[in-house]
């Protein structure tokens, strides 16, 4: 076989690379339907200033986006947010997407879900549900989610998703507070009969960057978690359990950066609640003007816009990337990480040991060994979003204190 199943990104990247075009086609459409969310996870990938963004796209505008992207080749559609269940038109959006031929994925916290709605989604043609957990024990989960009832609801919904015959992915964002219980996390996933488990170590952009000291695990924690995951993989395979455990290592413990989004504007297209189109769901933080689906067609956005062309090719690279013999492997790493840590979005990703700013990563690793006060966690909610915007966080460390919830 020319291609055998593997994780999304690598399979799709190879396909994109095989295309002779200057850049690939958008195979993956992430529809962030809303920034509204009942939870307050302190590592949320939504922008810090989400409370300031414009009006949400209407049902018809979303359907038009789905049609255009499908015509351009998109095959996977993720309904995300915020919490996509907040949208009352979700059933209709799923039905339209399924009719267009998408494989439809609902990426949810499970809060706001019930058996009737799961059945209605099934009828509309939903292919798969991903439920995110914050931890495998109730107390830590609810502390991180900022909700007392979250854990019990998630468990009930994960069981219902399987009972109704969906493939199910469980997603655990791992960090300092839950990574030592990775055995319990895996056992919970086995018990819930997940098909795939994403043990996704937190990546530090947006809210997670603000909370990095409270979240970044130590190297020892990480190595232990990976070893235990491997032991479970072997044990589960031996038992004939088809569950797949996907372990995502955080950049901060690598010596080379990852190839951001498998190439900027190569595979992924994110459309945010107000219609802003992005090559990656974090990219909104960059000082680039990104196009909006209300003003341009997806063809124009994908092929012609400055936002999507910005980091295609390697013209933009600086040293040490420009002359680096590994630049094809990682394309200079993550642009958001470079911008967040160096203030220059064209710089090498500091994760790279060749970056002049790599010391910042080493400092963060060293800091992870220290005790940090849990009460300093900045929760992701509207109030903190507004305060964060007002106080322009990174420039004014003293003022940021006001934005902290305890």
């Amino acid at each position: 076989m020319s291609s055998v199943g593997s994780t999304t990104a690598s399979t799709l990247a190879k396909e994109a690379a095989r295309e002779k075009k200057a850049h690939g086609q958008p195979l993956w459409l992430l529809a962030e339907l809303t920034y509204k969310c009942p939870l307050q996870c302190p590592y949320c990938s939504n922008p810090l200033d989400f409370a300031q963004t414009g009006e949400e796209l209407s049902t018809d505008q979303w359907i038009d986006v789905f049609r255009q992207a499908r015509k351009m080749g998109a095959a996977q559609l993720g309904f995300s947010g915020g919490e996509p269940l907040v949208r009352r038109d979700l059933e209709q959006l799923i039905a339209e997407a399924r009719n267009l031929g998408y494989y439809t994925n609902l990426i949810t916290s499970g809060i706001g879900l019930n058996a009737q709605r799961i059945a209605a989604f099934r009828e509309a043609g939903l292919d798969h549900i991903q439920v995110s957990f914050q931890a495998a024990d109730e107390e830590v989960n609810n502390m991180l989610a900022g909700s007392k009832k979250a854990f019990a609801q998630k468990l009930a919904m994960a069981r219902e998703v399987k009972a109704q015959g969906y493939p199910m992915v469980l997603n655990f964002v791992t960090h300092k507070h839950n990574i030592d219980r990775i055995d319990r996390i895996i056992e919970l996933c086995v018990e819930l009969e997940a098909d795939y488990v994403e043990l996704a170590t937190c990546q530090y952009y947006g809210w997670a960057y603000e909370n990095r000291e409270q979240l970044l695990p130590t190297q020892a924690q990480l190595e232990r978690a990976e070893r235990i995951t491997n032991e479970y993989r072997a044990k589960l395979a031996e038992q004939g359990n088809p569950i797949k455990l996907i372990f995502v290592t955080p950049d901060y413990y690598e010596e080379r950066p990852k190839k951001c989004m498998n190439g900027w504007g190569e595979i992924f297209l994110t459309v945010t609640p107000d219609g802003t189109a992005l090559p990656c769901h974090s990219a909104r933080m960059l000082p680039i003007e990104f196009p909006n689906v209300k003003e341009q067609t997806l063809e124009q956005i994908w092929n012609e816009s400055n936002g999507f062309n910005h980091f295609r090719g390697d013209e933009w690279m600086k040293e040490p990337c420009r002359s680096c013999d590994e630049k094809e492997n990682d394309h200079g790493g993550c642009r958001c990480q470079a911008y967040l840590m160096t203030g220059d979005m064209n710089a090498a990703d500091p994760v790279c040991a060749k970056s002049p700013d790599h010391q910042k990563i080493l400092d963060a690793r060293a800091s992870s060994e220290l005790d940090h006060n849990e009460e300093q966690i900045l929760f992701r909610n509207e109030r903190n979003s507004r305060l964060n915007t007002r106080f322009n966080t990174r420039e004014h460390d003293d003022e940021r204190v006001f934005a902290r919830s305890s």
Partner: protein
Amino acid sequence: MNAATNQPDILKAVPALERMFRFQWEEAQHAYVLLYPEGMVKLNDSAGEILALVDGTRSVAEICAALEQKFPNAGDLSRDILEFMEVAHEQRWIHYG
């Protein structure tokens, strides 16, 4: 599992696509693909032709016969088809009913 390892049995076995996967033609890629949660496998021409006949009612022998009829100049296809069935089973794209 036994069906996949024992050749006479496998010809009689009836493969079906695993529930996790959806098989469809993708015009933009000019290829058949298998879609699954947040992922996709692009199939080459022969894999696509074989999976297009996997419907939970045809046996492997019937699939071989149908393809040999469709491609009369291709000769004996059963070896390639059995080889593919083994890969598809290993990958858990299909199961035997």
